[in-house]
């Protein structure tokens, strides 16, 4: 039977009352798969991810992670649950006052009683997996953007989480680092038997590694399917996004009520 480590049912969320970010949204993430959540900027992707990691709670609906409803859990239970989840932040969010070693060792030191000698070995293995063995003594400021992202990946992996959440892992990377990141995500997902959720708007790269895609716009899921299905869909919004067209259901112009010509005092 298929199990779903993440099962989001009909959630609604708003930062303030008059502006809904997520509207009655449901997604299911099957075990062992890499699922991408795509959509334009401001469509609510990161907000959705933060519901799953329990940083925000929805106004209504259920967020089930490993079968437990996150909304009903107390602080302590959420912390327990988070030990089984790894999160990669958009720009890594490494602790700038700690060395690479201390960053990767952070959750091992916090949540396990392992002796230092074992922790050293685990950190070395995690860094080796992302190709950065030997950088232990470096400080985050000395790393390039791509390297920092990989250290953050090693850190997120430290406790061998069952669920990985990636917040735009491909943004701002050069083509080589980008492929390295994609390859690592795929490799680690298979090797550790993880489930991964990937937030991205990089279509090319993610098409290569993901099993399933949810397409978001304006706080709702407007399309879903395998990469091939999404590629051949007739949904105009998705087509516009994939082809990167300027004209289509998505507008790049801000929907203002002011009339441009009138504002400038010109007759149209």
């Amino acid at each position, binding site marked *: 039977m298929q199990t779903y480590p993440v099962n989001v049912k009909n959630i609604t969320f708003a930062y303030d009352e008059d502006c809904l970010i997520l509207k009655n949204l449901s997604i299911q993430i099957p075990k062992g798969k890499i699922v991408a959540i795509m959509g334009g900027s401001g469509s609510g992707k990161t907000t959705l991810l933060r519901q799953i*990691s329990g*940083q925000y709670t929805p106004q209504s609906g259920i967020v089930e992670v490993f079968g437990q409803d996150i909304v009903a859990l107390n602080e302590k239970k959420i*912390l*327990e649950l*988070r*030990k089984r*989840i790894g*999160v990669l*932040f*958009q*720009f890594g*969010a*490494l*602790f*700038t006052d700690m060395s690479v070693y201390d960053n990767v060792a*952070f*959750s091992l030191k*916090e*949540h396990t009683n392992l002796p230092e000698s074992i922790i050293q070995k685990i950190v070395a293995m995690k860094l080796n997996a992302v190709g950065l063995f030997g950088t232990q003594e470096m400080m985050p400021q000395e790393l390039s953007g791509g390297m920092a992202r990989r250290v953050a990946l090693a*850190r997120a992996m430290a406790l061998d989480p069952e669920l990985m959440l990636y917040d735009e892992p491909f943004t701002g990377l050069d083509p080589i680092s980008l492929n390295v990141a994609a390859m690592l995500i795929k490799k680690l997902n298979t090797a550790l038997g993880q489930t991964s959720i990937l937030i991205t708007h990089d279509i090319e790269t993610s098409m290569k590694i993901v099993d399933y895609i949810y397409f978001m716009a304006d706080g709702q899921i407007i399309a879903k399917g395998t990469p091939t299905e999404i590629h051949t869909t007739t949904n105009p919004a998705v087509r516009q996004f994939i082809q990167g067209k300027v004209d289509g259901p998505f507008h790049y112009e801000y929907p203002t009520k002011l009339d441009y010509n009138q504002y400038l005092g010109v007759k149209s």
Partner: protein
Amino acid sequence: MKYIFVRLQQLGHPFAEFILHLGGITSMLFEIIISLGYPFRKFFLIMKELYFCGVRSIVIITVSGWFVGMVLGLQGYNTLQRFGSVSILGSVVALSLLRELGPVLTAILFAARAGSGITAEIGLMKATEQLDAMNVMAVNPIKRIVAPKFIAGIVSVPLLSALFNVSGIMGGYFVGVILLKLDSGTFWSQMQDSVSLHNDVINGIIKSFIFGVAVTLISVYQGFIAKPTAEGVAIATTNTVVSGALTVLALDFILTALMF
């Protein structure tokens, strides 16, 4: 009519805001108190913060204390000379420092030197998602970041205040005895006679302990509520120094009224 209503709302808003912050800071204090066990298990965190807040503030505290003491010596000498009682200069310098100037100025300097640093550090950690990262790694930032800073603050301020007093008395001695040729024996014996351990020294320590709690709490709270932008962190840092100094002065009045 509507105009008056809006004006009234504008008047009430800062007050409501103040009450809101008071509530926020109190609940943060409780959260810190229940997390105090954690930094003692990771003692190196406290050591690091003590170095940052305490050790690195020694120079500014010692030098300021020295100058304040010298000014007290000069002004005291000028005034006392008129009444022919320059012999009590030692006790004037010591009592002003121990009771008021030592604890108050130390706390204000601490807010400017260490408090602003604490606020900026926490604010920037928030802006760069480090606090979020810590949270999703199942570590409460209050435990890991705030509690050690809090302990370091309340340990440092009384100690720095004692240092300020010693340095200030030495400054007063320098002006009174070495420059203005007062009798050294009179200077010290007058001081010994008029300063009481319980009334002056211990009350001063209690004061600076309370100031330490207030200033450190304001610093970490401002860092936590800072808007995660460059401007937000700048405002929060300024707020720490301004509201830290005002709180210390207001608390000093209340404590003085209660103690002396």
